[in-house]
């Protein structure tokens, strides 16, 4: 492995990488070694056009762009010399020549690389008195993205993303020189399942998502790491939290899982967290057959009583449980403990299968399908079979994927169950037939460990509190187990 020296620091690098890539590989880029850059992006091919990443390399005359200069053993790089500083200041000055003074009304303000670098590497005052170019300020590029042509610094990340990553190629640069503008090709819209990533990678406020535009000023956001729950890829996301609520997801880079991207559906799935159909309160069916809201303790008592009665009367063999691919490993372990205590063997996983693609989207719609399988929750077919044939008396079900047309479809088959305990985050048709419904927490509200489709184990912490009392599924399950334990121990259970 070649070694290069950057500002006196030895860095071991991989053959064939460029200086910027090598710094990124070593985790030093903008975190130990500052080489400001616009066009380079770890998920895209080297472009070499913004010319901001210039560094001095001993032995090579002139300044070199770090993003496209291949490393060589023994190379000595300087990133803080006067020449480098002057060159950066020159580029920053030129980038601002035509830039509108929009910061007060720009959505990017606060997370804008032009602001940041101008502050860090630019000169104090502007020397240009020339008129700035006037262009279109609100160009809808498609259903998800709006372009402000004046704010664009023409780094072409968006263009290259659509060519290199999605292969859809909707964007191009029209005209040339200082008349260049980003445009969609005639008759084409920026409309692909990953389109909103361009807003993430746009270093300035030129590309904004319709979803987040003008919603919250970003300096009110606290960015907390999370994982998308949309599919078995388990893409890493940042949860932008303000006023106690998740306001957006943006892609969080993880080269082992999702690179720098997330799909649009996953990005918008933050909406599920504060969705109006969240299950806000426990529900218990009364003697009169009506489901009413109740305190958690009451609901847990009702569940305990029903499960105990069922097992006493029919034994654990008539009870089954269905786990969900949205549960964390901790939830699944708690469910396993409960089932072991109850002596219940019949357990399966309700997993919705859908469309996948060859970029990120996985056909398994649940972030922890692999974790659930590893915890012993497998094919639900035997349980579904028994449900349809009336061969079960009781069911504990987590989530409501069971109602998906490819699984049970309708709750009708559950009508005959003596006991149906539901633990869920969102409301569903299961309420029609459930005896006890207990609200659980969304991943963003509890954190936990997940295993993605490739077997990568990922752990995240809670990012927000639920806006209503809701208890993590693992805790609910443990409390149930505890409540059931003494009696079962007496009856010869495992204690």
């Amino acid at each position: 492995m070649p070694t290069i020296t950057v500002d006196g620091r030895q860095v071991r690098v991989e053959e064939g990488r460029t200086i910027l890539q090598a710094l990124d590989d070593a985790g030093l880029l903008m975190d130990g070694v500052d080489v400001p850059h616009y066009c380079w992006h770890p998920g895209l091919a080297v472009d070499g056009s913004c010319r901001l990443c210039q560094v001095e390399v001993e032995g090579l005359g002139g300044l070199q762009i770090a993003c496209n200069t291949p490393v060589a053993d023994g190379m000595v790089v300087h990133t803080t010399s006067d020449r480098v500083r002057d060159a950066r200041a020159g580029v920053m000055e030129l980038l601002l020549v035509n830039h509108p003074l929009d910061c007060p009304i720009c959505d990017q303000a606060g997370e804008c690389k032009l602001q940041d670098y101008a502050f860090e590497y630019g000169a104090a005052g502007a020397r240009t008195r020339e008129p700035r170019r006037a262009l279109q300020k609100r160009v809808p590029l498609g259903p998800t993205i709006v372009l402000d042509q004046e704010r664009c610094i023409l780094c072409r990340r968006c263009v290259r993303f659509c060519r290199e990553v999605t292969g859809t190629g909707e964007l191009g640069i029209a005209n040339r020189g200082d008349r260049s503008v980003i445009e969609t090709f005639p008759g084409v819209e920026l409309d692909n399942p990953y389109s909103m990533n361009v807003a993430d990678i746009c270093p300035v406020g030129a590309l904004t998502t319709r979803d987040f535009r003008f919603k919250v000023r970003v300096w009110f956001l606290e960015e907390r790491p999370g994982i998308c729950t949309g599919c078995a890829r388990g893409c890493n996301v940042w949860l932008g939290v303000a006023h106690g609520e998740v306001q957006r997801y943006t892609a969080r880079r993880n080269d082992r899982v999702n690179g720098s991207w997330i799909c649009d559906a996953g990005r918008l799935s933050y909406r599920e967290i504060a969705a109006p159909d969240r299950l806000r309160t426990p529900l218990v069916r009364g003697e009169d057959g009506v489901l009413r809201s109740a305190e958690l303790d009451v609901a847990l008592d009702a569940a305990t009583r029903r499960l105990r009665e069922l097992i006493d009367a029919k034994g654990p063999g008539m009870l089954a449980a269905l786990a969900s691919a949205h549960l964390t490993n901790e939830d699944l372990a708690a469910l396993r403990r409960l089932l072991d205590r109850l002596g219940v063997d019949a357990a399966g996983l309700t997993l919705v299968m859908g469309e996948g693609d060859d970029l990120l989207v996985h056909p398994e719609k649940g972030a922890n399908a692999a974790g659930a399988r590893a915890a012993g929750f497998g094919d639900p077919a035997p349980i579904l079979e028994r449900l349809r044939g009336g061969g079960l008396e009781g069911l504990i079900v987590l989530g409501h994927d069971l109602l998906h047309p490819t699984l049970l479809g309708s709750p009708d088959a559950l009508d005959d169950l003596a006991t149906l305990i539901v633990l869920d985050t969102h409301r569903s048709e299961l309420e029609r037939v459930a005896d006890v419904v207990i609200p659980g927490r969304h991943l963003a509200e509890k954190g936990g460990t997940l295993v993605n489709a490739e077997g990568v184990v990922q752990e995240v912490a809670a990012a927000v509190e639920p806006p209503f009392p809701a208890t993590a599924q693992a805790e609910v399950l443990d409390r149930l187990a505890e409540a059931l334990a003494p009696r079962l121990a007496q009856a010869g259970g495992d204690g």
Partner: protein
Amino acid sequence: MYPRLPHVTGYLTEHVAEDDFVTLEGYRARGGWLAAERALREMSPEDVVDQVTASGLQGRGGAGFPTGQKWSFMPSDPDGPSYLVCNADESEPGSFKDRLLLERAPHKVLEGILIGAFATRAEKTFVYVRGEYSRAADVFESAVEECRTAGILGRNALGSGFGHDVVVTRGAGAYICGEETGLLESLEGRKGMPRKKPPYPAQVGAFGRPTTVNNVETLAHVPHIVANGPEWFRGLGTEESPGTTLFGVSGHVSRPGLYELPLGTRLDEIVFEHAGGVPGGRKVKAVIPGGLSMPALPAGQLDVPMANESLRERGTFLGTGGIIVMDDTTCMVRVACVTTWFFRDESCGQCTQCREGTGWLHKLCERIERGAGEDADLDVLRDVSASMEGQTICAFADAAAWPVQGFLRHFREDFEAHVRLAKCPFPASFEL
């Protein structure tokens, strides 16, 4: 008679006045294609590269890169096809030499192409002709067709066993498509935007394959070098810059046009003796020695040999040898306006410094010309052009910055007078 014949001819142009020189028969009758026969049948590619290297031939496309050395970068044992590109985009303002060679000596250029292709083991040559040069492209295509029919090109070129074909493509009107990698992008059907280097064309060129890009005139010298030997070539021109070149003289001179003269011929000799000096009894004010991209020289500095080694000492370059003469009625701020306008218009716009710098330079010059400039603007002109230099994907930004630096260096009074008087002090200058 062909209206653009050179006033002074040399080995490159000696038969260009004769109409049948454009035909295969006419070219052969004057000794044409013998050099290629010799190279392909009797020499190895290495021999040809060695001869051209020994001749000291420098590229005539503007950068003056040693041709033999460029050829030596090509793989000798390629794992697939290699290509030669003949750069016939000639778009440098002040430059009009390649057009003559294409229209009046197409077989000579083709012969140079075949020898160059053999030396670089290229199986195909793409001739990229400036879009406006439709006549040149037509003439050249006829010559290619003649050579195919005669077996000069084809699977067994000149019966040597070397296979080669030539494809003529036409540009669509962008100066930047003359830059070798902008050309390659355009050739492949994309927008003409130069490629970052590395990789260099000799590694990854046209259609991803090793490629050499040579100017039309460069290739036209090659048959003469092979026929007469490197020593003969070195006997012309200067020690460092051998051979003749085609100087194009335009602007305020009595006899504008082409002059084939040895490199190292003095600029004042070309302007005053050959081109007859400035008409109407006026004086020379400025001369751009090598096409619009090169810094201008003031009247007092024309005693310079036209070769890179000597021009460099005066802060300018030979470029494409396009000499533009301006008389003493000329407003150098207006010249700066048209120059910066040209580069602003033609910048491909990828690189920050070039995209924004060309526009800024132009706006500054316009404002100064309008009489709205300030002293500080001159410093901004200097700093902006300095920021553009040596820091971009291609040399276009340098080409845009250098002339401005030249105008400021030698004609600063013109700029200062505009600022002081708050108007243009040259009412008789050309109109913008």
